[in-house]
């Protein structure tokens, strides 16, 4: 029994190493000095050189990564900020209020989980053009301001909170929004964090939709910048630069993961269908 355990462990270690080689290569290649770029050793996984920041500096200078970071952050955090308001209000209504048509409206929300946005890029782009938002970051963000997934998550979270707390607040003369803000939302923090992680990750990583909406270099996001980078370096040999750029795009997510590992895993499982 113990021997099979060791065999499984060894086998998995090999698989995990193989699985991680793309990351290992990125790390090694991004610190490789430019002098050796282009030669065959570029593919080597061994850091047989003196590490340098050259590639990262080049990415910020020629690749405009500072601007891309800013735009991506505006999009991801902007979407999240509005979503937190819309999902809290809607989640509260579904969890705590009784009103005619509630079940029907709930099914209307439910359907949106299946009709994932990428499938509707063509008509949505038409809507964005009609609203005069083509080319703007707001145009990228607008379709995501409501989230069916977030509404479900908040509904479930609010439902798990005992009503006694709200009743006490109501007896003290608190309005519903005071109850929501001071009592329910602080207690719903795990749900909010889980949703925030999923939402930030989904929109940090998004590519196709911003690619369709944005049309000038000034407004581009990290993923679009990186794609242009990859295609641009096809002929040239700036692999170190490409590796550095890729690392810059991935870094915030991997750092977040390292810090919030447990929340990440929980909210990842929650989502399935992204928000």
């Amino acid at each position, binding site marked *: 029994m113990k021997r099979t355990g060791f065999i499984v462990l060894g086998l998995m270690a090999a698989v995990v190493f193989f699985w991680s080689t793309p990351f290992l290569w990125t790390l090694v290649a991004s610190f490789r000095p430019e002098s050796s770029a282009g030669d065959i050793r570029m593919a080597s*996984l061994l850091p047989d050189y003196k590490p340098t920041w050259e590639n990262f500096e080049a990415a910020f200078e020629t690749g405009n990564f500072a601007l891309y970071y800013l735009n991506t952050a505006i999009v991801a955090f902007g979407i999240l900020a509005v979503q937190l308001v819309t999902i809290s209000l*809607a989640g509260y209504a579904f969890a705590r*209020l009784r009103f005619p048509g509630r079940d029907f409206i709930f099914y209307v929300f439910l359907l949106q989980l299946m009709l994932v946005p990428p499938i509707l890029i063509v008509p949505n782009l038409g809507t964005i053009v009609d609203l005069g938002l083509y080319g703007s970051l707001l145009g990228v963000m607008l379709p995501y301001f409501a989230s069916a997934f977030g509404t479900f998550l908040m509904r479930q979270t609010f439902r798990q909170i005992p009503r006694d707390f709200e009743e006490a607040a109501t007896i003290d003369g608190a309005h519903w929004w005071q109850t929501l803000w001071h009592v329910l939302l602080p207690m719903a923090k795990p749900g909010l964090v889980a949703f925030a992680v999923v939402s930030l990750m989904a929109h940090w990583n998004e590519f196709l939709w911003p690619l369709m909406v944005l049309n000038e270099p000034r407004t581009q996001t990290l993923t679009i910048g990186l794609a242009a980078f990859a295609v641009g370096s096809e002929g040239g040999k700036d692999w170190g630069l490409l590796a550095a750029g890729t690392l810059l795009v991935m870094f915030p997510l991997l750092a977040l993961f390292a810090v919030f590992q447990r929340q990440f895993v929980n909210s990842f499982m929650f989502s399935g269908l992204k928000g």
Partner: protein
Amino acid sequence: MTSVIASEIPRLPVARQKRRPLRSRIIRRAWPYSLLAPSLVLLAAFTYMPIVRVLWDSLHDKVHGARTTLFVGLGNYAQLFADKAFIQSVINNLVYAAGTVPISMALALLFALALQRSSRVNSVMRALLLFPSMIPLVAAAALFFFIFLPGVGLFDYYLGKLGLQGTNWLGDPDVALWSLIGITIWKNAGYYMLFYLAGLQTLPGDVLEAATIDGANAWQRLRHVIVPLLAPTSAFVLVIALINVLTQVDHVIVLTKGGPSNSTKLVLYYIFEQAHENFAYGRAAAASVVSVAVLLAMSVFSLKTMERGAHAAS
């Protein structure tokens, strides 16, 4: 007189009392809807109206630059199904689904089985397997751009050391789609592993023990006990995997642009290309309608499967 006064005076406050509750009752009736209104307006604008719009667009032809549209009936659909590139993209999507979904699900289950016991080593390995699913698909594509580079890329470099010769991973029409399938498996298997890890924790330990005592070996336990008990998890993962197959084409855009000779053209990429590069909105709309229909059919089917799976498990 007195009787009139006497009857009128007490009536006033009653009438007022009546009016006030009415107004506040209307407010009270309306406010649940006002809380839902922001979400409903946005959902209507970007999920429900688009479906109406895409149906309308698919029945019309828009001359690029002109404001007028022309009703063409099912003309766009006829064109769509006559387009070899579209048919090719449907076939590619089926191959892509058949190549990615079963393999990544099987790997996910194996990873979960191997790493289910919690220990420090296992949690590090889990995290490393999970990494690919957290990075943007574009970043994964950028990495594999280099890995698949003919001759000097990571793959060919190390294959060369083993004395093997690589191939043109992204340039050969017979290989390119399989290269993309490889990327997708690499990216998603760790994510699906999470669901199986959660599913394994809910398995009743006594059933497995009973199977072991009855002399079932590891394979028999997996085949006849674990896999059937995990059916609900598998159904859920299957839905996510199928949605991914239909909605993720970032790697196609970065790596192959559907080529060589349409061998990696997936349906969503076809839609993107028709709308964004050929300005053939009618045809793009018709293809979108087909995709939405497939997605809806799939979700109805999967909900039924999940229900059945849940019954089987209980």
